[in-house]
């Protein structure tokens, strides 16, 4: 909208009117003339400052993996150990009061303490009561923002990285609200908590704010941001070939979509299409120095045009078009969409749950291919999935007690602690299949809710289970095949606090991109969108990111 002369006069008049009224209310001549722009300018913590406070890494391995992970890929185990060991010999609790926790969960809320056998069993081992509060992961930000603003946080708070990144002035919040863990965990001090010391340094690096260690990370079990999942069983049954190029992907969409049967080829796919076209997640270094934003990359425009065509030709399920895509998992499970993008973390749970009703159910990540002459790029980073913060102003003994609890929660695979945390109590929450692997029961699915898992970062492993027999090989195989295509995180180990003007343009720009995707604006409007983006905060963001890189000598 271009504002007309008339409305701008109205605006000035309005401003004067409101100004007068408000000034009269507050009664201050103090306001006069001190009008200034609000918002943070952003800040970046140097990578060297971060290295100095990290815990000393010490691997804790109880069992040799069958498929050793490489770098950020987790270790794989193809059989479940017959003999478990005690990883923690002394109960971590010191008899302190119950520990209040809050963590996200994407599913029905488990029963609370007192009515939850799983909580009872784990708390019995801990020697201190943990009283969790689970919040819907989809709306976690709303709860988190309100808590931070009111400075009313639980003793243990688990916050997903993508929510933390959105909180403005988070480094201020961290200092005001959470315990500085540096003295407890820096260097060899971490040896007191051996399973926390075993968490990868790549994950700890992200837990530093203002040069101090403030959180225990929950390392990612695979660095890729997204994968394109497809219903291998349905494609096979319909005689459709697995697409290996963008042209084939489009052809697949045409053939598979059948509205009369209520079947559409695609759910949300745009993020994956961008990766096929070789488009970076945000910034890329230009050959002559400086940074290029992905909107300036012709690959982004090509990906946008390709995906807009899928929408225009009705190959995307109407529910995805009409909502925010919350129901895609159900649509995919019931075969109403055949392909959509999701985090790789969704895979095992969906496969095991759905296969109980439909034994032929087989979801697989589509191998990544390049688009129209371009090399694909896979988005990802070693950023931990969650951070666990301890409330500020706790006595040192309490901090120690809580870190010991987190240490217990981080006990590695092959221990009794791991089994209890991950699967609950045998016979109650899981049954052991013939080959010894635990399979969750209905009660297990209902009660677990990752209530201890999400607060204590564990070293991720992939374990073969009876209900998903091929998952470990498939998962690690997919990663090994594609890890070489993952983009380098230019900012790995640099803590960025983004400027307010940058945060502000994200949503409006996303709105405009979505308008193009959904066909409300032509693809040719991208140039206009890009210009508006760069003018209203994009250039400021570029300068900020370039400076952060320069300061770190990259």
């Amino acid at each position: 909208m271009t504002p007309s002369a008339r409305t701008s006069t109205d605006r000035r008049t309005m401003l004067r009117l409101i100004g007068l009224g408000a000034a009269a209310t507050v009664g201050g001549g103090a306001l006069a003339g001190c009008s200034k722009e609000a918002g943070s300018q952003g800040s970046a913590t140097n990578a060297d400052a971060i290295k100095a406070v990290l815990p000393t890494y010490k691997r804790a391995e109880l069992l040799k993996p069958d498929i050793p992970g490489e770098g950020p890929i987790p270790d794989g185990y193809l059989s479940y150990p017959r003999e478990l060991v005690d990883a923690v010999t002394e109960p971590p609790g010191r008899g302190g009061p119950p520990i209040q926790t809050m963590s996200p969960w994407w599913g029905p809320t488990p029963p609370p303490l007192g009515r939850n056998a799983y909580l009872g069993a784990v708390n019995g081992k801990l020697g201190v009561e943990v009283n969790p509060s689970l919040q819907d992961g989809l709306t976690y930000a709303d709860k988190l923002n309100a808590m931070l603003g009111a400075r009313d946080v639980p003793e243990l708070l688990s916050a997903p990285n993508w929510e933390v990144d959105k909180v403005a002035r988070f480094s201020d919040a961290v200092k005001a609200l959470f315990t500085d863990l540096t003295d407890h965990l820096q260097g060899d001090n971490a040896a007191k908590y051996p399973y926390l010391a075993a968490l990868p340094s790549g994950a700890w690096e992200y837990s530093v704010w203002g040069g101090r260690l403030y959180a225990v990370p929950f390392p990612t079990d695979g660095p890729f941001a997204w994968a394109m999942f497809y219903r291998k069983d349905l494609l096979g049954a319909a005689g459709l070939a697995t697409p290996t190029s963008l042209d084939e992907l489009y052809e697949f969409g045409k053939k598979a979509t059948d509205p009369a049967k209520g079947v559409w080829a695609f759910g949300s796919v745009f993020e994956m299409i961008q990766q096929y076209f070789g488009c970076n997640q945000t910034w890329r270094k230009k050959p002559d120095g400086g940074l290029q934003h992905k909107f300036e990359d012709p690959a982004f425009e090509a990906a946008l045009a390709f995906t807009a065509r899928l929408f225009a030709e009705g190959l995307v399920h109407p529910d995805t078009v009409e909502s925010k895509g919350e129901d895609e998992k159900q649509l995919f499970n019931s075969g109403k969409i055949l392909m959509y993008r999701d985090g790789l973390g969704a895979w095992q749970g969906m496969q095991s749950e759905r296969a109980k009703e439909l034994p032929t159910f087989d979801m697989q990540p589509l191998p990544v291919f390049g688009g129209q002459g371009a090399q694909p790029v896979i988005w990802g980073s070693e950023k931990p999935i969650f951070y666990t913060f301890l409330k500020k102003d706790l006595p040192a003994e309490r901090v120690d007690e809580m870190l010991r609890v987190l240490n217990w929660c981080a006990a590695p695979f092959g221990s009794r602690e791991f089994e209890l945390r991950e699967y609950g109590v045998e016979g109650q929450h899981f049954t052991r299949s013939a080959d010894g692997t635990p399979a969750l029961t209905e009660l297990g699915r209902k009660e677990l809710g990752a209530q201890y898992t999400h607060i204590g970062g564990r070293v991720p492993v992939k374990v073969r289970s009876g209900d998903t027999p091929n998952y470990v090989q498939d998962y690690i195989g997919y990663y090994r095949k594609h890890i070489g295509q993952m983009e380098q995180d230019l900012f790995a180990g640099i803590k960025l606090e983004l400027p307010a003007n940058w945060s502000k343009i994200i949503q409006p720009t996303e709105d405009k991109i979505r308008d193009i995707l959904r066909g409300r604006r032509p693809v040719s409007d991208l140039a206009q969108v890009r210009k508006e983006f760069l003018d209203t905060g994009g250039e400021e963001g570029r300068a900020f990111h370039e400076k952060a890189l320069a300061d770190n000598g990259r």
Partner: protein
Amino acid sequence: MAAPAAVLLLVFHYLPTLGNIIAFQDYNPFVGDDPLDAFLNSEWIGFGNFEALFRDPLFWDAVRNTLSITAFQLVFFFPLPILLALILNSVVSGRLRGFVQSVVYLPHFFSWVLVVTFFVQMFGGAGLLAQEMRQAGLEPWGIMTNPDTFIVLVTAEAVWKDLGWGAIVFLAALSAIDQNLYEAAAADGAGRWRRLWHITLPGLRPVIVLLLIMRLGDALSVGFEQFILQREAVGRQAAEVLDTFVYYQAISTQQWGLGAAAGLFKAVVGLVLILTANKIAHRLGEQGVYSKS
């Protein structure tokens, strides 16, 4: 006896109102030792937030959308509960009336998520209507995704949800009208329509005017969830209202000062509208929200 109510008002309405000072601050909730400290220590920036707000074309888009929806609903939604109340009132059978009332009240208790899902399942591209049309060889049209008709869609949803609820007040007002008047008028030979025009509507007029004034005071609030849920389907141009603007530009980017400025703007405009409408009502000889001393 009024003390608890007064305390309630003081604690939950008047005290929090003081928080509006953050509209004039670059408010940072994390400075100082406690939330009160944060108010005192945040930087004072005068009208910076208001300037940023009024300079933002997105804000004016949101204001325009909000006002369009208010105006549209004033014409196409506001009279409907009155009509429904009149119809229900003329139903003689008490059981039938009770049944119809229950059915039309019920959707009021559904959340917006449910209402929107219901509409998607009925009228969406994979919904009942679309599937029926495909069976019949017709091409379904995008009821849920057309930005141009979005205003009709949200009004239809609001009518479905709140029509019955809105009729309650009018039904109560109808039952307060003296039945003798009708009998006397009928005896004098007044027909159905004359009785409606000369007895029923004048009897309802004070309530209608009161609700109209209150609705005007809320002109800049048209709801939040309904719009945020359907925003992606029709785009920002059609679905951005003031409350979603505040959510995206102030709450989710933690520009609390900007959000407070937008809220204050809403409150001031609402107050001006209420006072104006009330004045007009007085001129026309109505009681309005409060009577003239």
